[in-house]
C-alpha cells in the first residue's frame, strides 16, 4: 500500500521558509499572497494489505521519526 504523509508546522510556530517565500513572491510581483507555510510531503510503499494496520504503522513512524511533534503536525493518507 502507498502512504502519503503531510507534515506541517503547528499554528503559532514561526515558519522562516514560508515567510521567505512570501517575501520573494511579492518581490517577483505576485500581489495578494499571504499565509505561506512550507511543510514536508513524504510518500512511501508498505508491504501491508490491511488499511487499518497500515495506518497504525505509519502513525508510529510519524510520531517516532518523521515528525517533530514539538513543532509539527502530521496527516496520513493510505491508498
Amino acid at each position, binding site marked *: 500500500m502507498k502512504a502519503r504523509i503531510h507534515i506541517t508546522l503547528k499554528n*503559532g*510556530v*514561526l515558519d*522562516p521558509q514560508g515567510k*521567505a517565500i512570501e517575501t520573494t513572491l511579492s518581490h517577483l510581483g505576485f500581489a495578494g499572497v499571504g499565509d505561506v507555510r512550507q511543510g514536508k510531503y513524504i510518500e512511501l510503499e508498505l508491504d501491508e494489505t490491511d488499511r487499518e494496520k497500515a495506518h497504525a504503522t505509519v502513525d508510529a513512524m510519524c510520531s*517516532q521519526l518523521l515528525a*517533530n511533534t*514539538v*513543532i509539527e503536525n502530521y496527516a496520513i493518507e493510505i491508498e
Partner: protein
Amino acid sequence: MKASVIVFPGSNCDRDVAVSLAAASGTSPRMVWHAETDLPKSDLIVLPGGFSFGDYLRAGAMGARSPIMRAVIDAAHAGTPVLGICNGFQLLTETGLLPGALMRNAALKFVCRDVFLRVTQPDSLFTARYVQDQVIRVPVAHHDGNYFADAETVARLEGDGCVAFRYCDGAGSVGGAANPNGSINDIAGVFDPARRILGLMPHPERLADPALGGTDGQPMFASLVECLS
C-alpha cells in the same frame, strides 16, 4: 575527567571537540560509535557538531533515534552531564532532553562566522569559568540554529535561569543584527533545569587554541575539567 564523544555517521566535529577536551583534561576522550548500545562509564557525554545522517529529514532527527541514544538518555536522567554542540544541540532537542526545536535560520542560509555571546548563566559546570554577562567570541556554523520554543517554555527557561548564552554584539548588546539565525530571545544555548545538560549552537571548540585566532571557548572545557575531575 573521562569524557565520551558520541560519533554518528555524518558527525564532523567529533575530532575537533576531542582535541579541545584532551587539551583541557590531559586525557583523550573515548569515541563511541552510534550503533553501540552500551555507554562506557563517563563523567561527561559530548554530542559533537556535524551533519548526523546528513541532517536529512531534520537536523538531528535520525541521530536521535540511534541505538546509543537510549543509553545517553538514561545516563542523562541519572545525572551524567551532557554537552551538545551545534548538531549535538539539535540532537538534544530531538530526543527531548532539552525543550524546543532548532529551525532553519531566518535568513535561510548556512552561516559560518564568529559571533559574540553574553554569558547569562555562569552557575553551571559548563560555565563556571565565565562570569555573569561576560562577552565572549565563539564561531557559529549552521543552517538550522534558529531556536524556537513556545511562549510558556521560553518563560520557564528564562525564569529558571536555563538560558546559558545569548547572541550579542562585541559590546555586549543583545539581539538585532548580532543574532545570526533568528533565535527566539536571542538564545544561543540552553540548560536543562538541573543545569547538567547544555545544548548550544556556537562551537567553543573552534576557538580554544591561540593558533586559531582566539581562546574564548577554552574556559568551557576548563570548567568541565575542574568540576568533573
